């Protein structure tokens, strides 16, 4: 029973993932759609960061905001992304005594 549910979940997840591989093989887009699609990663980053970051510690949203500022500052200094991630983890660790 659970296995069929898992297979159903796999199908509805896989189809939207692979259809675009065939779509771009069949159609080439006008330049404005290319620009739209090129902007999608930046828009996705925005939508994935906020408001999700507030729920790092749901009862204390300032923890997430502070960690975001730490990550932003480290990234602004051109530090490697691993340092950015570890710095944000350390800041949350220190804030949650």
């Amino acid at each position, binding site marked *: 029973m*659970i296995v*069929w*549910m*898992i*297979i*159903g*979940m*796999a199908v*509805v*997840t*896989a189809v*939207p*993932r*692979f*259809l*675009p*591989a*065939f*779509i*771009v*093989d069949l159609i080439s887009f006008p330049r*404005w759609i*290319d*620009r*739209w*699609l*090129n*902007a*999608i*990663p*930046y*828009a*996705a*980053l*925005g*939508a*994935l*960061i*906020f*408001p999700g*970051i507030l729920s*790092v510690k749901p009862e204390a949203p300032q923890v*997430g905001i502070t*960690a*975001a500022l730490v*990550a*932003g500052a*480290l*990234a*602004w200094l051109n530090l490697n*992304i*691993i340092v*950015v*991630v*570890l710095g*944000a*983890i350390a800041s*949350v*660790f220190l804030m*949650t005594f």
Partner: protein
Amino acid sequence: MNSQAVEMPSYTRLDMVRKGVIAGFPIMLGYIPVALTYGVLAGQSGMTNAELTLMSVLVFAGAAQFLAVSMVAAGTGAVEIIIATFVLNFRHFVMSLSFMNRIRSITLRAKVPLSLGLTDETFTMSSLHKREANEEFGAWFYASLMLTAYLSWVGGSFLGGVLGDVIPPRLRESMGVALYAMFIGLLIPSVKKHFRIAFIALFAMIINYLFQLWGMSQGWAIVLGTLIGGLSGIWILEDDI
């Protein structure tokens, strides 16, 4: 002087695999604690270790798997869980369209398996490694990036189910920020290069936030935030960004 010395550096297949694994490393750091938690919760909801690992193998979508586990625990029917999964994962259609359009030069035979490895994290990380799309062994770079993420997700889920949560609670909670920090770490360098990109991300944030505030499900709010936020790129981006 040897004429080869002035040619473009070309990377071997192994170089590209190595670069892909390195690029996948931050995702691994973020996935492992989340996957362990998933394994523990799924075990508590009554799923066997085989079932919860199979779900990670076949679905490979964190948020949807957590949702499914909480719905299983609440006794929700399979059809409802599948519909909820579709809604929550539909954003991968938008992301895949963007990524597939970027890697047009890679063969369809490689594009299809790569598309199945797309998550929020592998998509954003891969998309911001634009140069590899036009390199000879580019598909190997993206494949190893995605496999690094995939194996840590599947392995973490299994370990969570078998061992329980081995990370101390306070450290695990702190590691919950890892993926957000990674998204910030991906966005900032692009914003530094072209400040206008900040507006695209800000539009998407505001739209996502407002739609969730007005009661829309998180799945649709992220899809619409990404699509409408990205729409602003038509005017903001130039053809070569």
